[in-house]
């Protein structure tokens, strides 16, 4: 049983990284996630676990440092927020192309452009559909609590190394900034050279000794081998879709209507569900935990007994498209969203719900 503390979401990311044996964090300040690097610098994990923490000159440099660290078979991570994430896309696509594991944390704020610093979910497309150039996907985890901020650091590294693919925690500024009770994991030591050899020994840059040279690259000389490699990536994504879908359902068994929402909006919709149930309206909530792979089948399975889905997001409707693809026109899919950093209240959601479904 780990320590139970009252902590801010962003601080928990830093604390869990230290505890789970992360080897390196490379970041650049941006609101609303600066507490991650600040917490690390205050904690000085290099004295405790040997973890490297470095403030880079830009988000571009930070993600390329992550690339360098990941090349060595190390558990490395970065964090940023929306405008900074746009800059990181170059490094992320290189890592997807070089099949390097890492953890990225995106504490989303309102956009486009410099936008606002308030919570938003408008980077769903960027995170789940690739984000940079080329056919690739990230493993996308969407925490809805400070507890999950901790849990998903551990899970994110686990999945990243399982699939040799970058994993991203996609969270809005509300979860990053709020304080909640959290049970932190026990300390796990950083991997030894021996463990790195066992886990990533067939590709990591550990120095050419009694083996063939290792080369980390995303470059191919000609088209046919690149296509073969792209098929390999696609097989990997297919396996993720079959193995790694995570979601939560609340009151969906007898629901006439189902909210689909993730992150902090899922909690707002959970409250709306309770309030509507008190009024005798049978409403449920489906909360995707992995946004990629998306719980397509779970939504599909609920279609036949559902009068309609209401997708609620802090965006103009991005996850909405994945819900529509899952439903395939078999029942109604409606949308309610707020943008630019405005957080909907449960009452806003209920009002929209009653208006949309004429209840």
């Amino acid at each position: 049983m780990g320590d139970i503390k009252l902590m801010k979401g962003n601080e928990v990311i830093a604390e869990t990284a230290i505890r789970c044996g992360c080897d390196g964090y490379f970041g650049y300040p941006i609101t609303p996630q600066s507490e991650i690097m600040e917490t690390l610098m205050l904690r000085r994990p290099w004295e405790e676990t040997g973890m490297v923490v470095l403030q880079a000159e830009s988000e571009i440099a930070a993600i390329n440092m992550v690339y360098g660290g990941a090349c060595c078979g190390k558990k490395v991570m970065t964090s940023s927020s929306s405008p900074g994430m746009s800059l990181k896309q170059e490094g992320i696509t290189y890592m997807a192309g070089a099949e390097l594991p890492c953890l990225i944390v995106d504490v989303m704020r309102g956009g486009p452009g410099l936008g606002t610093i308030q919570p938003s979910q408008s980077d769903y497309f960027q995170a789940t559909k690739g984000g940079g150039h080329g056919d690739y996907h990230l493993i996308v985890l969407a925490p809805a609590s400070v507890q999950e901020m901790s849990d998903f650091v551990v899970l994110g590294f686990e999945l990243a190394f399982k699939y040799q693919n970058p994993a991203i925690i996609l969270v809005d500024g509300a979860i990053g900034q709020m304080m909640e009770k959290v049970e932190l994991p026990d300390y796990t030591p950083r991997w030894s050279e021996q463990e790195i050899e066992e886990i990533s020994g067939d590709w990591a840059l550990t120095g050419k000794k009694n083996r063939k040279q290792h080369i980390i690259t995303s470059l191919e000389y000609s088209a046919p081998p690149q296509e073969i490699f792209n098929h390999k990536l696609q097989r990997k994504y297919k396996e993720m879709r079959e193995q790694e879908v995570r979601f939560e359902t609340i009151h969906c068994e007898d629901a006439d209507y189902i909210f689909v929402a993730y992150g902090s909006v899922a909690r707002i919709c959970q409250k709306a569900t309770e309030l509507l149930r008190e009024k005798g309206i049978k409403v449920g909530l489906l909360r995707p935990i992995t946004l990629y792979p998306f719980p397509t089948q779970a939504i599909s399975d609920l279609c036949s007994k559902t009068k309609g889905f209401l997708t609620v997001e802090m965006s103009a409707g991005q996850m909405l498209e994945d819900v529509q693809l899952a439903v395939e026109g078999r029942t109604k899919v409606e949308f309610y969203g707020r943008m630019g950093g405005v957080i909907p209240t449960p009452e806003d959601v209920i009002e929209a719900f009653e208006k949309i479904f004429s209840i």
Partner: protein
Amino acid sequence: MELTDIIKAENIVSQKSKLITENVMHYCPGCTHGVVHKLLAEIIEELDIQEKTIGVSPVGCAVFAYNYLDIDWSQAAHGRAPAVATAISRLQPEKYVFTYQGDGDLASIGCAEIMHACNRGENIVVIFVNNAIYGMTGGQMSPTTLLGQVTSTTPHGRDEKLNGFPIKITELLAQLDGTCYVTRQSADTPGAIRKTKKAITKAFQNTRLAKGVSIVEIVGTCSSGWKMSPVASNEWMREHMFKKYPIGDIKDI
């Protein structure tokens, strides 16, 4: 005496470094990269650090350096090699980490990364081959292209009003407190090659002393990009490039 009587181990006075792979190099005739690769291979072998050396290749002609030098390599995004090398070096401090970059990679798109890696005093070696042109993409103007020099994007010669001035990035980097050894060399004569070998050897030895960034710029030729024969390229380089980019040590502490 038969030829087989001559070709014997005891008669060998010079041979290819065992770190040079059997892959056929893609570099054009007259290109400086081949010489620099050969020197790196010899130095890594002579220092006996093959097991501890990790190279970071750039985007540009040297992107495939990993095909020719038998060590562990990371291939970085354009200009980002110093950031990649930073993390490799910090996470494996016992290693010898070097970047291999051209003038487009280091002095244009990667300006921020090289500046800040140097300013932090990362314990890395930077091999910077400056041939004043983008070779891989077909001979466009680079930040170090000389005034008046004709390239595919300066077909009327580089004009300072239109294109700005050639940048002496190495002198700039020497100003930063995190660099310990900054030198500019060439590879156009046997003597120059020997000096370059000495400089790169010293740069790698500095890693053991953890003194900060060591930068070896090698002023080189790009016969294909310059559209000159290898011999004419060397003459043009000596006449024009060396004036703007004088050979010698810039900093050594």
